[in-house]
């Protein structure tokens, strides 16, 4: 058994290393690499295009009104895929809270936090506490910036939500534990559900043509529908159609989901630490 598995590992490694030679070089993917020089000023121009990515690159800006092509692929062309990913995150958060509440089990929820003379939590050094207080607004503002400017600069719902959840992680490791777990959990859970609901409702709003149809883009300057010029531009915040809405919804969902995971884990750690010798229960 051991020898057979070792042999199988060598076979797999040999096939993979041999398969490297069959791959195309990076920098030489299929398709036309210079897709913009023959671009006409129409909304959709498919001349001389052979691959899907070249279609996205050439038409993504005009069709969705977003400067960031990655965001337009994530939330517009492949928005249904993103809905599935958001549902997976929701499901994972649900199962984690179901599993961890069996450890927490209602005790230790109203625990009072030990504080030192200045009101900072005891346990960590003062450097961590003051650093948390100083850094938290900056991290939250940066995450919100990433969410809101997702269609103009690198960023979007997933990255911005993760950066904002880093702030929660900072709170958790510096022992600013949450006073009332039940209330916090309900708040985060409500906003997480709200994010997913807004995503689905926005998807159904364009149902006249298709699910997740970008019905707000290029509407001559009405709500989020500014027509942007072709090519390089400084970026306009009120462009993009439904992309900023979906981005904000996903950002809220990711932030609240990861925060639920972190808060529940830290609370389970505290509940475990309070009962000594719990190795065999």
């Amino acid at each position, binding site marked *: 058994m051991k020898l057979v598995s070792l042999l199988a590992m060598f076979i797999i490694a040999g096939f993979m*290393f041999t398969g490297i030679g069959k791959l195309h070089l990076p920098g030489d993917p299929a398709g036309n690499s210079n897709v913009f020089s023959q671009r006409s000023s129409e909304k959709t121009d498919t001349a001389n295009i052979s691959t899907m990515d070249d279609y996205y690159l050439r038409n993504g800006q005009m069709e969705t009104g977003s400067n960031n092509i990655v965001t337009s*692929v994530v939330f517009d062309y492949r928005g249904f895929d993103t809905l599935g*990913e958001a549902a997976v995150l929701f499901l994972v958060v649900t199962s984690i809270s179901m599993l961890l509440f069996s450890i927490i089990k209602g005790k230790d929820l109203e625990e009072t936090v030990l504080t030192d003379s200045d009101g900072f939590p005891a346990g960590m050094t003062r450097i961590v506490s003051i650093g948390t207080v100083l850094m938290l607004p900056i991290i939250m503002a940066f995450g919100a910036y990433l969410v809101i400017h997702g269609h103009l600069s690198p960023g979007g719902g997933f990255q911005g939500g993760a950066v904002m959840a880093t702030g929660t992680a900072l709170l958790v490791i510096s022992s600013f534990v949450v006073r009332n777990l039940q209330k916090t959990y309900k708040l985060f859970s409500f906003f997480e559900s709200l994010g997913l609901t807004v995503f689905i409702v926005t998807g159904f709003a364009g149902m006249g043509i298709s699910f997740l149809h970008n019905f707000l883009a290029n509407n001559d300057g009405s709500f989020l529908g500014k027509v942007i010029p072709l090519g390089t531009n400084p*970026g306009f915040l009120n462009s993009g159609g439904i992309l900023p809405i979906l981005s904000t919804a996903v950002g809220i969902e990711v932030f609240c989901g990861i925060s639920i995971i972190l808060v529940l884990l830290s609370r389970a750690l505290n509940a475990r630490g309070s009962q000594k010798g719990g190795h065999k229960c």
Partner: protein
Amino acid sequence: MLSIFLYVTVVSLLILSITSVIYKRNLIKLVIALNIAESSVNLFFITLAYRPDSTAPIFTLAPALQELRMVLPSPQALILTNIVIGFATTALMLVLAVITYKNNGTLDIRKLKGVEDHD
């Protein structure tokens, strides 16, 4: 030259992680190994999307339209969501490991082998 380094790194990480899933016994070490496998797949997709002498697929502050070359956007979009989902599944695996430790007092796979299920 560039391709050799990146692809060899991807394959080496994948082989390393599969080998450690086979031969390591600690559950948390297994989670780390699966994370490394996921990172290698992410790196593989980003490598496939790369074009030299080009910019990121963002038009804000990009060069002028005539000499503009961009990397492929859709592998980046796929990997972007995969990273967040990878974090969520990592958290789920860790919680399952913690509950296994709470019930059995060990993280060793071979000691968990004799645990009979009580239906």
